């Protein structure tokens, strides 16, 4: 029996199992089995082509955004509209077949845009677009391109496919510590009341994964699915922006409704509407900071920014400038919102914030 058949069998058993207190442990176990089988679908079966071609586009720039959507929603047109890229869609009669990279330059940052082929329903289970779904895992932000003229359920369908390959959209990893040990059995502790998880459920799931000794500390009221995600360990928590294209073909009232949905942007490539707002929102969702360096006695050069992720420290700033600079740091001077006074003398562990100006003083 293949992996897909096993998955279908377990799904059927879950439907037959009525939800009540006595069966929730059984359902938890089945969920654990399902997660394992689905992960097997993602494992590569053979080596693909040379690096950088096809879907193995090399990551470049300061961040990567993956365009995800059904065929013919206008992803390639959008890529061309906001980058300098001429999508290779012209080489194919109907639609994009491989991943096409482009670069969006936004206020000093270089953001790689990856136009992935349209997803077909069932992509996560090996049907067309499976590689596109998997490639999305490498992105720092997913731009889900949806056709405003099409049915409302296109979004749910794509979210389902991404969920199957372990992508968690617009969510944070669960606040749980799982430490696998060599002995001592399963230790289960929590700092808040739990409504879904308990020792027995954790024990069952861990044993399904052949983990017999572990310390678990739970700090928020997680679900069984959250716990399985934690044990699986290969989940990707990615921000997602929902981009409704072709709004020139619907009413302004519909535009207003779509635009007010959370994390939603409405655009028209035909009429070049709202593309600057889209770029602005992409930047915001990527959670990047611009840091400016400054030599002693000179003004900073604001035409050139170092791009770092939110939460980065002076150490990451040094690493961005030069591979060995962090080792040579004597101290740094910081002007900006991260400094208690301007300038503040700081070390490698100082956390920088958007728009900070930094002078690196070496030994």
């Amino acid at each position, binding site marked *: 029996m293949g992996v897909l058949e096993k998955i279908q069998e377990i799904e059927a058993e879950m439907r037959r199992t009525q939800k009540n207190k006595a069966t929730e442990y059984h359902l938890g176990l089945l969920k654990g089995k399902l997660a394992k089988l689905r992960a097997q679908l993602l494992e590569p079966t053979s080596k693909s082509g040379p690096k950088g071609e096809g879907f193995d586009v090399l990551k470049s720039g300061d961040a990567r955004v993956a365009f995800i959507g059904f065929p013919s929603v206008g992803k390639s047109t959008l890529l061309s509209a906001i980058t300098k890229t001429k999508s290779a869609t012209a080489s194919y009669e109907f639609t994009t077949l491989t991943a096409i990279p482009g670069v969006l330059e936004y206020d000093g940052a270089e953001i790689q845009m990856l136009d992935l082929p349209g997803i077909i329903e069932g992509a996560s289970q090996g049907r067309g677009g499976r590689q596109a779904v998997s490639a999305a895992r490498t992105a720092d932000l997913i731009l889900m391109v949806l056709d*405003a*003229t099409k*049915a*409302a359920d296109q979004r749910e369908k794509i979210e389902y496919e991404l969920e199957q390959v372990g992508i968690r959209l617009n969510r944070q990893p669960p606040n749980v510590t799982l430490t696998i040990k060599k002995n001592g059995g399963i230790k289960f502790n929590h700092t808040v009341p739990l409504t879904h998880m308990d020792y027995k459920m954790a024990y069952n799931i861990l044993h399904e994964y052949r983990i017999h000794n572990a310390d678990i500390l739970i700090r928020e009221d997680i679900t069984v699915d959250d716990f399985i995600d934690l044990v699986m360990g290969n989940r990707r928590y990615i921000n997602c922006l929902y981009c409704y294209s072709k*709004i*020139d*073909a*619907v*009413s*302004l*009232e*519909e*535009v*207003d409704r779509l*635009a*007010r949905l959370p994390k939603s942007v409405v655009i*028209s490539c035909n*009429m070049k*509407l*709202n593309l600057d*707002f889209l770029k602005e929102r992409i930047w915001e969702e990527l959670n990047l900071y*611009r840091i*400016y360096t*400054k030599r*002693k*006695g*000179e*003004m*900073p050069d*604001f035409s050139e920014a170092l791009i770092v992720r939110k939460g980065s420290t002076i150490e990451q700033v040094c690493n961005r400038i030069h591979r060995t600079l962090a080792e040579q740091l004597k101290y740094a*001077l*910081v*002007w*900006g*919102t991260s*400094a208690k006074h*301007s*300038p503040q*003398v700081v070390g490698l562990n100082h956390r920088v*914030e*958007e*728009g*900070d*100006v*930094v*002078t690196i*003083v070496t030994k």
Partner: protein
Amino acid sequence: MTSAIEEEREILESIYPEEFKCINDSTFEITQPIDREESNCDNPPSLIFTCQLSEAYPDEVPDVKITFSEPHPWLGEEEIERLKQVVAQNAEECLGMAMIFSLCSVAKEETNAILIEQSQRETQAIEERHRKEAEQENKKFHGTPVTVESFTEWKKGFDAWRNEQLKLEQESKLKEALSAASSSNARKAILEKRMTGRELFENNLVKLDDVEGEA
């Protein structure tokens, strides 16, 4: 047991060789399969007709019970009650005659009728839902057309709304941070509006010669 009951049992055994079961001398059970095409039902259960004949049979209506081989969403208590009433009415009309075969036939016919009605009701519900969905989908194509001018005007209103949302969100975060702050100094630090490093330099609020002193 009367000869009438004995005779009835022999009749039923010959009519329903497979379906008939004798519970005891005066209680009979007949299980009739329901044809899926006759009933327009994909997976119909079998109709189980149970009757208990009294000493006065056939001059007294038998005690009839109707169940199904397995539960089905289209055959609830209401439908079973309807079947009982149809059977009871028929029984009254058949007093004085052997009637069990007739009652079984009526019960089966009525079951088919019920299932056909339920099937049609479900089809109509599906069609109505599709019609409403299509209507809802089509609604997006009617109304104010999107032009550069109409969109620009709309965007102004949207930006105002969005800025209001962001402001409320920031105020909410500020309240949260203030309530979590442990001292008045910490609260002051939170409330203080600060410039980014870039803004400090661009607004000439940093003296370059001061920097030399730090080195």
